[in-house]
Every structure is written in structure tokens, then in C-alpha cells.
């Protein structure tokens, strides 16, 4: 009875072309919003883009553009020249900064993803004594501000002679409490326990189970975690600003030097700002969708 009953029902529903129940649902959902919604969103989008345009506008002019009361809203032709003077400014070390940013952010992202997946796997899928308390502890560490450890860290790295070394910003960032929490949340629902049991029955060791079952399942969440870690490592300023040398900076530190001159030429500063943002804009063009869905998925779970 129970096996036979459902199919005819389903067929019947599909056979009737305009099933009233379904149709009303689509009508309610399908109503397109009016001009108000679109114009509000257009304003939001405009204000999100405007600062980028503004820096291009100023960055493509010259030092006097900003003072011109009849400033044109069309960009000038000096952007490449301004960008070149940022790149060639010996105080800024642009290429060095770019390389440092790419190198450190990539390394940090890879390391955070690997260790977070490993720890998240343990917290989500393996039973061990004290596991729950340790996870609570991990979450609690997220509330600790960076500022609290900065002074001894500086003393420590100065002792080791690592101040000014790019390693000084990589090592403290190799793991992340947020990452562990994120992967734990994801793996909890992504991997059925039966799969782990099956692997174990087949004689796989614990680590092999992680490699063959955990890692493949974790891939989507790991990619998002990697993206977010990369972006925040790239944009990080406080600690790199403290510990790095002015002649071996990351991009944000180099940017901060642009403005520290006695005379500030904003056409060059804003050209530099735009130049330093290009790599992340490229990343956004390719992975913006993943960033969006990453935030939205994290919100539902968190």
C-alpha cells in the first residue's frame, strides 16, 4: 500500500498542466519588483563603484587636478605616468611589496586551509575526550584582539632577529580559529558517519580516512576559506606595519608610505591605490561568486 500509493499521485499532479496550488505559488514568487527596488540597488552599486572611479579620476590627472574647481568628470591621460612613478618610487618598493603580498597571502591561505581542515575533521567527525571543550576554546580565542599579543610578539621576533622579515607576518597567521570553526561546521553535515565507518571497516588508518573521505568532501568549504583567508591576509595592515621594514613591505604598508611624504601628490597616491587593488579586483572577477556564496553559507550556519 505505502509503496504503491505515492507514484500515481505524483503522476497525476504532473499530468495536470495548471495545478492550481503550484500556479499560485509561482505567481506570488514570480512577481517582479518595480522600479523602486532597482533604483535603490543602482544607487548602492553606484556608491560601491564610485570610490574606485574617483581614484581613477584623480589618479589619471596631475597634482593640480584636485585643486581645480572646474574639474572634469572624465579621466585624464596621466594614469600610466602616475602608476609608473609609483612603481619607480625608491621609497615604495612596489615590486618587492607586490611579491611579498602574493607570497605571504598564498602561503597563509594554503596553510590555514590545510590545518583547519585537519582540525575541523577531528572536531566534526572523530570522537575524543575533551573534544567539545577544546572546540569551545577555539571559538573563544576568536574574541581575543590582535593588539593583546603584539608587544611580546614584537619582542620575540626582535630577539630572533626576524623583524623586517616577511616570515614574521606569515608564521603567526599559519592557523586560524575562524578556519577551524568554519571547517568543523561544514564537515559536520557534509560527511555521513557511515562513510567513515565503511572506510574503517575496510582497514583504512585514521589519516588515510581523512585523505580519502575528509579532504574530497571538504573541498568546497576549503576553497571558500582559502579565498577569505587570502583576502584578509592581503589587506592586513596593523601587524605588518609594526614588524616589517619600510624597504621590504607588503602592499598596504607600501601604500601607507605613499602618503607619508611631506608634500602629498594625490594623483600619485590614488594611482598607487588603484594599482595595489588590481590583483584583488582580478581575484574578485574570477572568484566573486564564491565569495558571495561563502558569506551567505557561513551566515546560515554561524
Amino acid at each position: 500500500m505505502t509503496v504503491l500509493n505515492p507514484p500515481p499521485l505524483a503522476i497525476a499532479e504532473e499530468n495536470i498542466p495548471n495545478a492550481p496550488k503550484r500556479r499560485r505559488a509561482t505567481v506570488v514568487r514570480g512577481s517582479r519588483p518595480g522600479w523602486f527596488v532597482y533604483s535603490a540597488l543602482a544607487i548602492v552599486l553606484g556608491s560601491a563603484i564610485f570610490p574606485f572611479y574617483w581614484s581613477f579620476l584623480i589618479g589619471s590627472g596631475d597634482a593640480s587636478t584636485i585643486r581645480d574647481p572646474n574639474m572634469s568628470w572624465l579621466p585624464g591621460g596621466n594614469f600610466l605616468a602616475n602608476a609608473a612613478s609609483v612603481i619607480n618610487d625608491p621609497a615604495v618598493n612596489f615590486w618587492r611589496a607586490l611579491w611579498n603580498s602574493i607570497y605571504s597571502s598564498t602561503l597563509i591561505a594554503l596553510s590555514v586551509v590545510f590545518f583547519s581542515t585537519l582540525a575541523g575533521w577531528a572536531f566534526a567527525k572523530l570522537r575524543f575526550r575533551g573534544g567539545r571543550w577544546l572546540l569551545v576554546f577555539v571559538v573563544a580565542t576568536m574574541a581575543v584582539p590582535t593588539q593583546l599579543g603584539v608587544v611580546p610578539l614584537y619582542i620575540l621576533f626582535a630577539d630572533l632577529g626576524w623583524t623586517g622579515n616577511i616570515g614574521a607576518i606569515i608564521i603567526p597567521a599559519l592557523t586560524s580559529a575562524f578556519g577551524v570553526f568554519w571547517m568543523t561546521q561544514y564537515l559536520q553535515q557534509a560527511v555521513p558517519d557511515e562513510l567513515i565507518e565503511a572506510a574503517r571497516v575496510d582497514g583504512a588508518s585514521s589519516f588515510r580516512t581523512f585523505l580519502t573521505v575528509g579532504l574530497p568532501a571538504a573541498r568546497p568549504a576549503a576553497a571558500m576559506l582559502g579565498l577569505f583567508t587570502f583576502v584578509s591576509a592581503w589587506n592586513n595592515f596593523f601587524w605588518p606595519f609594526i614588524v616589517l621594514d619600510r624597504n621590504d613591505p607588503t602592499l598596504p604598508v607600501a601604500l601607507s608610505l605613499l602618503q607619508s611624504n611631506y608634500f602629498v601628490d594625490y594623483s600619485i597616491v590614488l594611482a598607487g591605490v588603484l594599482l595595489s587593488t588590481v590583483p584583488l579586483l582580478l581575484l574578485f572577477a574570477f572568484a566573486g561568486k564564491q565569495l558571495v556564496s561563502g558569506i551567505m553559507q557561513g551566515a546560515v550556519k554561524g
Partner: protein
Amino acid sequence: MTSTATAPPSSDARPDGPSTSPTPRQPKRIAFGHRLTKWDLKLSPYLYISPFFILFIVIGLFPIAYTAVISFMDWDLVRNTGTFIGFDQYVYVLGQPKFWIALRNTFSIFLLSSVPQLLLAIFIAAMLDQNIRAKTFWRMGVLLPYVMAPVAVALIFSNMFGDKYGLVNTLLGNVGIPPVPWHSDAFASHIAIATMVNFRWTGYNTLILLAAMQAIPRDYYEAAAIDGAGKFRQFTAITVPSLRPTLIFVIITSTIGGLQIFDEPRMYDQYGTGGADSQWLTITLYLYDIGWGQWNFGRAAALAWILFLIILAIGVINLLVTQRVVRDEGRRDAGTRREQRRAAASARRSLAARTEATAEPEPGPAPTDTTIDTPEVPR
């Protein structure tokens, strides 16, 4: 198949002679393998989480404790040691008028950035929650500012908020409003810095709220629409209450981040000291100035701990408010109330059964008891 092939020798050996040497050996082997997998199962979880904890102890826990130690010292940078002076650094920091100005500025910027940002984010999320065309395009557009470094955002906006030639003042002048001293006036500078924060984070929080909105069952809106509720009424009666838990999450995270603000005020002018009269000096900016401007690590450490305690205090207040708000919503209590009802009903049932102890059928009075008494039990 393989197990049956290997098993026979041992099963054969047992009935033949229990005292022979091969029999004890084979169980031993199995036991060793068992022990190995047992240790593997027991130890590997700790092994997997150890990288995080080892690193956290070295660069998290140890520095926190050491910050506390240093904060009680007069730290000598040259000798790299300190002399113990008790609470003097705390007394000094708390006695500085600059500290209180920084505290005021931090809270002012925090409020100016979080409150409008949250309202704006709810509004934009509500717009995105409509059945719009090109959803992904709009969502990505909203998130675009997030990829720009705070330092870069600060450089652009400090230019737009220039006192003399800034874009904002030019636009205000076109409307006939006199120029605002965005840098020399404290409150105006807070607005400018809060604008930078809002620019970068509104879209991010919008998407979080949007996800929460989409988790609300659409039937609620259909039911409300049938009952005659307009869009606005639906928004206030359905959307906002359902968003509460997410709002609390957003508020807590933005509090932790907002009280640590450094990048934006640091880059607001070319000197990075928070303005001539400390108009936009924040606590972290002050900490940087004490630590790496005046090179006084003892005081910087004391200030770091004060900042942490402030964040902790705000966090506890947040938590208390949160719990009350969640309780108002009634979700969390629904379970306990039901439990209370059940407990009360069963107690009454057993009591009635004991006192009456007659042939009266039990299922009859028990349900009526519960239905009549339930309204009284919770209150």
C-alpha cells in the same frame, strides 16, 4: 574470503593442543594490530588539532600572558628586560587625558559606523531579497568594496573628505552648504572615518542578512499577504523578528572589530597620529603611538590589556542583552515550557492516581488536566 583463508590454522591449532607455542603467538599478533588501530583512533584526533593549539600557545597564549607580565613592568628596550613596578603603568595610562579622548573617539566611530551600517544593510538585503533579475550581479556589486584594503579605502576617502579641496565639500558648496572641517572638527572626522568602515563592510553584512532572510519560509509572507498585510507590515512583522539571531551575530562580530579600529584613522592624514588635538585618535592608534612611537612597551602592554577588558565587558553586555532578546522571541522557552507542562501533567496524573485510587479510567482525566492547567503552569 581472505579472512576465512587465514583463520583455519588458528582454529585448527586450538582443538589440537592448547599448550603448543604457535597458539598464543597468533592472538598476540592480532592484539598488537588491534592496539595499533586503537592508538591510531585515540591519538590521531589530538594530532590533527595539535597544529592549531601549538601555534596558538606560542603566538597566542604565551604573548597574552607575557603582555600581562610586561604591563606590570618598566620595560627596558636595550637590555630587553623590565623591572617590576606593579600597577603604575595602568595608573599612568588611565590618568592620561589622551586615553579618555581615544576611548570616546573609538566608541563614537564605532557607533557611527555600526548603527547606520546595520540599518542600511537590512534595507539593501530586503531589496536583494525581492525577486530581482540578475541576482548574482547585484550581490557581487554589493560585495565589491570588501576586496579593497582598508588602507586603500582610507586613502581614497581621506582625499574625498579633504578640508580644502575635498569632493564632499565641493558638492556641499554646490548645494549652498558651507564647507565642513572634516579634519579639524572631532565629530566630523568621526563621520568621515565611519563612512570608510561603512563603505567596506555594509555589503558584507548585507549578504549575511540576505542569507538569513532567504531562510525565512515564504509561506509566512503568503499567509500575511492573504491576511491583508502590506509589504511594510510584512517586513516589520515577519522579516525583522526572524533576523534577530543573525543581527546579534553581526553586532557581536562588528563590536569586536570596531573597537580595534586602526587602519582607517591611521591613514586619515599624512602624519597618522590621530590629528593635532587627537580628534580621531583611537585606542589602537594610541597603543601604536605608545609602543612604537614612544617605545614604551610597558605602557603599551597595559593599554592592550585595558582594551581587551573593554572588549570583554562589551561582549558580556552583548551576551546579556542577546539572551534577553532571544527569550523575548520565545523560541528557546518553547521547549522548556513544553517540558514544564509535561512534567506538571505527569505529576498531577500520578497524584490523581494515588489520591483517587479508584476504578476511574486514567486516560480520561489526564488530558483534560493538562489542557486546563497549561496556561497557569508557565506563569
